[in-house]
């Protein structure tokens, strides 16, 4: 009897919904807490980026001037130091890396997307490319040291800016290939078939239709990959970017300084003045990269809207 009354009570409780109600309140409470948690988490990265930029600008703004861009670094008069040779070196690296890596990346992407049959070797190439994308950049440096600096020294001039560009090219090729393939894949099949129906060969279709259509997507990938290349310090330190030189790079076989390695060199000196110089150098490189990234993003958004 007592048991049944309890059962009735419980049933009544259920019917009144009191238990259920409190439970709903806690569940919604958790929900609200969770939505705040994920929002905060999503903003952590952006917040750190903001603090970083403010910190760097605060540290480096005192050293930023036109003279900073046009002078050589100096240990004797650090106040007058500048990034001129590093800036020129980085421009050389950028240009040579683009000339070397863009055709190779486009070629490999076109082959894999438009020509390659689903054979064992082609699947191996694909797995291999995704693996290469995960190889640490300093390992590419060791590769460049063994092949371009030592083995091919007569062709590359040893620790030249060409060697640096070749090493960076190998580093960014996987990224270039992956983004270009994605751009090619998003082109509808009907475009290709239309071309073939008019009697065009495979290459004619690729050259006249596929490459132009894939261009915005591929260009976005190129900008992101190249901006990664000019920000890399580790591989070019390994293949011998100069810590200091008294001339500016004037040809592909010359030695070179580069922005990230110049910044690293200043960071590793303890005096305050060098830390400020490093911060000013960082402001310059971040400005360049932010502009490049914005262009890439605008380009991609435009492309996505159109297609």
């Amino acid at each position, binding site marked *: 009897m007592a048991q049944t009354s309890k059962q009735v009570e419980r049933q009544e409780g259920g019917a009144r919904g009191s238990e259920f109600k409190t439970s709903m309140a806690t569940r919604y409470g958790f929900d609200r807490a969770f939505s705040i948690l*994920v929002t905060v988490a999503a903003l952590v*990265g952006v917040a750190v980026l903001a603090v970083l930029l403010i910190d760097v600008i605060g540290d480096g703004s005192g050293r930023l001037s036109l003279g900073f861009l046009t002078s050589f670094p100096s240990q004797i008069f650090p106040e007058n130091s500048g990034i001129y040779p590093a800036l020129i070196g980085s421009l050389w690296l950028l240009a040579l890396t683009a000339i070397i890596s863009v055709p190779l990346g486009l070629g*490999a992407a076109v082959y894999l997307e438009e020509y390659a049959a689903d054979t064992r070797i*082609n699947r191996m*190439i694909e797995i*291999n490319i*995704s693996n290469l994308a*995960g190889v640490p950049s300093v390992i590419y440096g060791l590769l460049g040291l063994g092949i371009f600096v030592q083995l091919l020294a007569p062709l590359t001039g040893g620790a030249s800016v060409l060697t640096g560009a070749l090493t960076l090219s190998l580093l960014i090729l996987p990224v270039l290939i992956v983004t270009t393939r994605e751009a090619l894949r998003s082109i509808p099949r009907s475009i290709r078939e239309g071309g073939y129906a008019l009697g065009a060969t495979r290459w004619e279709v690729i050259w006249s239709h596929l490459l132009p259509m894939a261009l915005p997507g591929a260009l976005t990938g190129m900008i992101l990959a190249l901006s990664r290349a000019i920000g890399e310090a580790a591989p070019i330190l390994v293949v011998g970017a100069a810590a200091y030189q008294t001339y500016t790079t004037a040809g592909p076989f010359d030695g070179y300084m580069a922005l990230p390695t110049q910044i690293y060199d200043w960071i590793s000196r303890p005096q305050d003045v060098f830390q400020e110089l490093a911060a000013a150098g960082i402001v310059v*490189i971040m400005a360049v990269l932010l502009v490049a990234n914005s262009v890439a993003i605008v380009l991609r958004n435009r492309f996505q809207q159109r297609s």
Partner: protein
Amino acid sequence: MAVEAGRMRSKEGDWQRNSRGREFKERVIKFLLTACAYLSIFTTIGIVVVLFEETVRFFLDVSIVEFLTSTRWAPNTGDFGVLPLVYGTLMATFIAIAVALPIGLLTAIYLSEYAPRRLRQYLKPALEILAGVPTVVYGYFALTFITPFLGNNLFSDIDSFNAISAGLIMGVMIIPTVASVSEDAIYAVPRSLREGAYALGATKRETATKIVVPAALSGIVAAVILGISRAIGETMIVTIAMGSQANFGGTPLESMQAMTAYIVQVVGGETPRGSAVFGSIFAVGSALFLMTLALNLASYWFVRRFREIY
């Protein structure tokens, strides 16, 4: 009739001659494109051969057993036990993952389940910029901002080079990797699963954490493995902010050296080619390459093996 047939023949002839030229051009182009794709194979072979050759030469001087088991790393006195460097690398990686796993995963959930469309449009590029910040910049920030900040507010006995600032900032660096790969996996979970959960009375959080995340788990694990591999291979942050003194068993507040940092330290000095010290960077590089290769393959395998197919 005859005239017409003749004209047709001549046209056909034209066409064939032309076709032969086109076919040749096509073949040359295909060959060139194939060569571009095969370059990636040669890159891998190049990496393996360079690392292997120099590593073997190094192990002629130094015993491989000592390299893999000794806990003393002092190249100048001929002590080549790699474990202290591995310890430094793993310490920084562990701290980085402790930051990047929760924040990256929650960011991915926010982006795919919670974020208003407008905000998402701005947040994703912002994360891309975070991923594109040069690592020397992160290194500078860890050394000149995070370390003094921690020293003033939390740990007064922190070294000026230490694992914790380097690890924390490395965590921030790999948030975009973890977030974007996880988000792809979460995005691929079909709408019907979410709707089923709502129909059963689940709240939004319950749907996200009990239905969507488990359904995307293989992709999330792959994202984390990829993040670990990035952290292990990261060079400039640990070189700048964690120090250049091998330290086996040190606390996160102490200075220690990572494998990548050792390589940079040696190439920056005046080490003669062919010496044991110079060879040691290739041995350390080999160990690093094998570690990241294993992780990348594991991540790849994980996605393939455990992918839920809807």
